[in-house]
Structures are given as structure tokens and as C-alpha cells.
């Protein structure tokens, strides 16, 4: 027989009683006796193996029972047992902290990313997912700029950028990674410098340029998510096909004039070829260089693409899979269309005819991309 002290929190179960007299010759029997009197107490003290829960401490006369004989510790009439729920917390959990120094966020990172970390959907675990993630951004221009920028700011650990162009004066109306002093510099170099100034912790990878049918299957499988910021149809088909064949999710965006589009292609769901089985005849759809584009729309669509990448990495929310968002900046109307995988799709349909990468310049009737010397 012994007395059990019930802390405030458990008194809602013990009808307000502070001290309970229990039967039993040891701790286990005493606690079972308490559970017999107040059945709800049982699951608050014991786990499924009838061991004391990790978040509960049992004391007898001011000694933690594991310092003594544990549940077998003998009790007698004068003994006072106390069952104390742990009061704990902190910036990280035990398992996170014990995951070793390599994976623990450093205090500087915790501070830098605190506005993300404090959100329950991200937390320190999510932040480490971002740090461990590898994202390939195709193009460092209008769309690739804000995408790469927000990924870098958020601490996405590895960002690959494919880009073969040099900075032109006419890019500066919208391409936020490049500044006036960068004119004639390779865009990749300029992008790397800008991103490094924003966040030196992020590694920027420069795959062999440009992305072609010959190298795409060597590059894309190295990444978790791919983002399309390409400005031509040949690259769009190439990236779509390569992502599908490599089993990678592609976050796609497009802009022209005052319009923008956003969707996410995930293997098994609608792909770019389901939506557009064939490229438009050469010259029918003008490029941004030919028709113009509102600079700010690159920020709208690019930021949304970056958001979709975060959702993929963190596995939260509802991705833009099988959904196409159409943005008209003139009316500022956002319309969403439902997409479906096409069973007749030559790539991801039931009887695919495209089983490896093809010659996309020939497919699109476009002149081959001119590779500029970079050094």
C-alpha cells in the first residue's frame, strides 16, 4: 500500500483528488491499482507493452524509479509515488537533434530560415528536406530567374541551372538575376553570382550546356524536381520527355504578352504531350522576343513555379497535377482547367511510340540552338 500524488493535469481524471491511496507491493501493482480506480489513467501511464510511457516520469520519495528497481521497486505504506507528465519542447525534437551534426540545422540556418521553420508545414524537418533537395532549373531567364531566386533564398541545397545564353540589354526589363553590369556575361555566371550573394549556402551546379537529347538523360535523373523556364518548343518537348522517362516531376510555366500558364507534370498524370501532342508550325506562336512580354508576369508565374517546387519537396498541399492555371494579367483573372492523361499520348499513353529522346529541333521544325562560347 502507498500514496500516489496526482499532479494538476491528471486531476481531471481523478475527480480532483490530489492523493490516492493504492494497493500493491511494488510500483507496478500500485500503478495498476490506480488504473483500476481510474481506468482512463492506464493509457496515460503505460504503453502497449505495459511499460511506462516515454513522456511520463514516475518518482517514489523523490527518486526516479529507474534509479531504483524500476516497476519492481518495492513500496510500503509511508511511500509517496508521483506520476509526472514531461514538460518539454524546444526548437527541435530529440530525433532531429540526434540525427547527427551533419543533418542538424546550424543556428545561422535556423535563424535565416526561421520564417519558414516556424510554420508547422515546414518545421526543421521540412527545412532539412529543402536543404537536401536537388532541383534543376531549365533556363536562367524570365521564369528561371524568380524560380532559382526563391529556391536559393529558401535554402534549397542544390540548384542546377541549364542556360547557354549571354545577358543582353533587352533581358534586363524582366530577368532579375542579371544587372546592367552583367551585359555580355554568360547568364549562368551572372545567375551564379547573384544567387551566391543572396544565399552562400546554396550550391549552384552547372550541367553541360545546353540541355540536349544526348545529355538530358545523364543530367535529369540527378535531380528530385525539374522546373521548366525554357523559351522554345524544342526544349519544352525535350524536358517533358526526359522527365517522364526519368520518372521526375516537372513544374512547368509559360509566359507571353500579359498571359501566363502554370501546371505540374507528374509521371502517370497528364504530360505536356497529352496537352500538346504536336508542336505548332514554326512561326505560328510568336516568342517573347517577337511579341513581347510583361516583365512582372515572369515574377507571378516564376514565384508560383517555385511554390509548386516547395510543395513537391515538402509533400504538402495540392499540387498543380492534372490542373492548368491560366493567368490573364490584363483582367487579373485566374482560370483553372482540368487536365487528364491522354491514353493515346505518344509518350505516356497506353501504347507509347516515344520511348527514348528524339531530335527535337527536327520535330519542332526549329533551327538548332546556337551555342555561344562561354569563357
Amino acid at each position, binding site marked *: 500500500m502507498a500514496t500516489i500524488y496526482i499532479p494538476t493535469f491528471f486531476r481531471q481524471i481523478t475527480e480532483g483528488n490530489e492523493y490516492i491511496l493504492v494497493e500493491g507491493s511494488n510500483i507496478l501493482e500500485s500503478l495498476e491499482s490506480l488504473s483500476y480506480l481510474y481506468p482512463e489513467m492506464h493509457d496515460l501511464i503505460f504503453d502497449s507493452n505495459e511499460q511506462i510511457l516515454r*513522456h511520463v516520469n514516475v518518482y517514489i520519495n*523523490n527518486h526516479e524509479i529507474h534509479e531504483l528497481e524500476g516497476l519492481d521497486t518495492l513500496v510500503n505504506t509511508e511511500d509517496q509515488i508521483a506520476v509526472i507528465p514531461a514538460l518539454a*519542447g524546444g*526548437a527541435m525534437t530529440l530525433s532531429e537533434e540526434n540525427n547527427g551534426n551533419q543533418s542538424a540545422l546550424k543556428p545561422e540556418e535556423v535563424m535565416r530560415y526561421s520564417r519558414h521553420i*516556424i510554420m508547422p508545414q515546414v518545421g*526543421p524537418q521540412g527545412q532539412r528536406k529543402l536543404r537536401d533537395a536537388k532541383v534543376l532549373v531549365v533556363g536562367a531567364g524570365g521564369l528561371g530567374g524568380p524560380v532559382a531566386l526563391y529556391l536559393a533564398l529558401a535554402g534549397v541545397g542544390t540548384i542546377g541551372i541549364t542556360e547557354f545564353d549571354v545577358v543582353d540589354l533587352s533581358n534586363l526589363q524582366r530577368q532579375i538575376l542579371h544587372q546592367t553590369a552583367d551585359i555580355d556575361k554568360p547568364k549562368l555566371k551572372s545567375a551564379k553570382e547573384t544567387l551566391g550573394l543572396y544565399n552562400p549556402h546554396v550550391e549552384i551546379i552547372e550541367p553541360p550546356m545546353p540541355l540536349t537529347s544526348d545529355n538530358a538523360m545523364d543530367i535529369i535523373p540527378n535531380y528530385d524536381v525539374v522546373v521548366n523556364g525554357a523559351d522554345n518548343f524544342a526544349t519544352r518537348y525535350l524536358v517533358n520527355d526526359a522527365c517522364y522517362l526519368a520518372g521526375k516531376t516537372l513544374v512547368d510555366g509559360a509566359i507571353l504578352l500579359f498571359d501566363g500558364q502554370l501546371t505540374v507534370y507528374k509521371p502517370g498524370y497528364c504530360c505536356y504531350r497529352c496537352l500538346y501532342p504536336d508542336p505548332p508550325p514554326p512561326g505560328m506562336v510568336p516568342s517573347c522576343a517577337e511579341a513581347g512580354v510583361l516583365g512582372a508576369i515572369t515574377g507571378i508565374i516564376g514565384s508560383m513555379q517555385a511554390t509548386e517546387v516547395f510543395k513537391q519537396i515538402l509533400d504538402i498541399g495540392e499540387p498543380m497535377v492534372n490542373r492548368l492555371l491560366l493567368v490573364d494579367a490584363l483582367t487579373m483573372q485566374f482560370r483553372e482547367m482540368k487536365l487528364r492523361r491522354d491514353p493515346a499520348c505518344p509518350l505516356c499513353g497506353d501504347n507509347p511510340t516515344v520511348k527514348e529522346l528524339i531530335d527535337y529541333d527536327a520535330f519542332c521544325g526549329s533551327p538548332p540552338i546556337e551555342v555561344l562560347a562561354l569563357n
Partner: protein
Amino acid sequence: MPRIPKKLIDEMIAHAVDDLPNEACGQVNGKNNKPLTVNRVKNIAASPFRYSMDPLSMLKLEQAREEAGEYLFAIYHSHVASEAYPSATDIRQAFFPPGEFDHEPMFPECFYILVSLAQDPPEVRAFKISQGGLVEEELINSEDD
């Protein structure tokens, strides 16, 4: 809106600084809606990212409170490198068993005070955590009476 005298706020900040690089934790006892004393509790986790209050100290503090007719006004702890806002862990641990957001939290009437040393001067903010894991900030009035 909790009224917490600046003296008590300063005591919590001093504790947070004293226990660097680890998180500091403790309890504020109160009576008649007024906080009276800041009581340091040993952080047995002894970690810069985590705290766990020494259960025996908690037991003794609670028994002393009952004898004095006081109650647990606030639980405080420090974040050494993140802002003064309850982390996901803090919110989980406000419930028993941890993460059982459907229940009432362990101390529904108690303020959760966060002392952040991530900026200079340190920041002290108070929160209520309620059923469902809801976190609401409570503006601290630190003017002395």
C-alpha cells in the same frame, strides 16, 4: 493580455542568457491573475534545441504552489537561434500525450512564454496554446504597477 512586470521579464531573459548555449526553461507562479515569481527549472535535455523540465523540480514547485494558494501562470523557455514563437515541437508537447491535439492542452490557462536570443535585444512573447494546436499570441503588458 498578461501583465508581466518588467522585472520578471528581465529575470527570464537573464536565465536564457545564463544557460547559453542551451535552451533555458522554467515556470512563473502567480496568484489572482498576477505573476509573482520566476522559477528556474533545470533543463535535463541540456541542448541548444530542446528542453525537458526536471520532473522532480516540477513536482516540488507544484506542491509549493498548492501550499501557497498559487497557480502556474506561465511556462517559459528560450530559443537560442530562432524567433520567440512556439515551434512545432513546443505545440506538440503542450498536449498529453504529445501531439494529441484533439485533447485540451495540459495547461489550457497557462501562458507559454518564449524568450528568443536570436536578436539583440532578446525578444519575449507570450502565447496561449489551445485545443487543436491553435496558437494565439497574447500581447504582454510589461508596465509596472
